[in-house]
């Protein structure tokens, strides 16, 4: 459903993403991993329209979407979450999600928006009470709200920027199960970004590994985790890589 070809993003003289191509099949969960600064979030930002690619094409459901503004991309059916939750604190939990339902689906219908908000909140396990304030939510709750907002936009493809760093083991498992449930029950295809390999590998169908803006490996989780280039990036064969991996472990 999504075909990305030769995607490049340069910021001045720095190339954040260099000639990355990949495809996403309907109904799969694709994991996108790589160390900090490897270009994962930059790819997400191009897919969701936050900024246009310097070169390359992004074809979604047969039509070109590269360079479209974010609201048009969302209306075509690509929803996203942010790595650090970005709730609207001046709105209630319900209003946060209803807003996404109203504008994200492009239908601008209040009835549909409220309906989408009810369903999305129930799906992620947040209260559908209209008065509940965002201030009452903890780290895990805010991540759920972030997901609910994305689901309410009625996506066919969900870009989940799920950094699970701040969560404990149980919460990580719950978050992973949630993504699988979203795919299974709502039929939403998912690209899941994460720097830590562990939890992700148990859930995804396929994995793609980025390093320094380039794709270094792609395939089934078991194959990718034994790929020497991936091992080098994550575990390191030289001092530099070891340092990076150690920094990763501390997070």
């Amino acid at each position, binding site marked *: 459903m999504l075909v990305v070809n030769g995607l490049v993003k340069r910021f001045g003289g720095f190339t954040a993403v260099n000639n990355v191509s990949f495809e996403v099949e309907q109904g799969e969960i694709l994991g996108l991993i790589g160390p900090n600064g490897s270009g994962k979030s930059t790819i997400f930002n191009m897919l*969701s*329209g*936050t900024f246009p690619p310097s070169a390359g094409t992004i074809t979604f459901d047969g039509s070109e979407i590269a360079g479209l*503004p*974010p*609201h048009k991309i*969302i*209306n075509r059916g690509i*929803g*996203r979450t*942010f790595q650090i939750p*970005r*709730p*609207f*604190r*001046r*709105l*209630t939990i319900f*209003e946060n999600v*209803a*807003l*996404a339902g*109203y*504008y*994200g*689906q*492009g239908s*601008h219908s*209040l009835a549909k*928006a409220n309906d989408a908000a009810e369903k999305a909140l129930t799906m992620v396990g947040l209260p559908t009470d209209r008065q509940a*304030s965002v201030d009452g939510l903890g780290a895990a709750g805010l991540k759920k709200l972030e997901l609910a*907002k*994305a689901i309410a*936009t009625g996506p066919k493809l969900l870009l989940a920027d799920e950094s699970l760093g701040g969560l404990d083991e149980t919460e990580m498992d719950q978050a992973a199960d949630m993504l699988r449930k979203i795919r299974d029950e709502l039929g939403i295809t998912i690209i899941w970004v994460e720097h830590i390999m562990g939890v992700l590998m148990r859930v995804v169908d396929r994995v793609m590994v980025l390093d320094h803006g380039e794709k270094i490996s792609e395939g089934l989780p078991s194959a990718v985790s034994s790929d020497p280039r991936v091992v080098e990036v994550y575990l390191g064969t030289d001092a530099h890589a070891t340092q990076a991996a150690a920094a990763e472990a501390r997070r």
Partner: protein
Amino acid sequence: MSLVAFRQVVPWIVGAMLIALPFVYRDPYHLHILVLILIWSFAYTSWSMMGRFGLVSLGHGGFMGVGAYVTALLWNHLGVLPWIGIPIAMVCAGALALIVAYPCFRFRITGHYFALVTLALSGIVLQIITATRDYTGGSLGYTPDRTKGSHLAALQFDDKTTWYLIALGVWGVGLLIWRWVDRSMDRYALEAISEDEDAAAAAGVNVTFEKLKITVISALMTALAGALYCQYQMFISPDTVSGIAVSLQMVFAVVVGGIYVALGPTVGAIITIMLAEGLRIGFGTKAVGYDNLVYGVLLVVFIIFLPKGILGSLLERIKPSSKR
């Protein structure tokens, strides 16, 4: 009577009393003050349409000046009736708002930088009025010609009662527009935008379009306020309807009254106009300009100690359970 029913009835009773007022109380000076309060309340409400969403414009003096001067110039030079001139003036102000705001919103000029760009707009409109003194009378001011025909067609009335009712009607419409925005989904979108533009865009909101929409609505309303002021006073000068001082006065009044509540700008207008009149009567010509000094000091005090304004803070005390 239940509380909800009571709250539904109150606006109608107050409205009826306001309409009936000039028929039972005819003191021309007090009616004059009331007309000024209503016109400025409408102007301040127009400003806070966008100001409440963090779009702090210091360019509204410019929109007000365009509303007043375009209407008067069309009337004096081309004989265009205000009934047509005012809509033209409003469209001019709306176009000006688009020209200034579109690049700002497109290139993400927000917060302080947006305020600075709009500040320049105020200055430019003031300079243009002063520079084209052959047409506008420059800093000496400008007077629309007295009509020799129908007062209604020229929108020139000598009695205060008519003006009071016109100003009351326009002010009421301003409050209705406020309420319409407040209850629409646009309000949520604009609140979201004011907190985080990227996150709002990720929820599907067309950020540039939503901001432009509210800016143009605000500019159109402000221009109408300027035109009404001109028709009522029959004298305008760059200092009273345009320029930075007028823009700042709007910000001050709204902050004092309450930026997030519908009647906040009205409370602000009551306070600022009473203050100016009080100083004028109390100290006469010795106190010319003192009101600006008092505004300045009060503005600092309010922003620090009462950022929600008088009405906003009062309402919060009365119902502590409200969201704001």
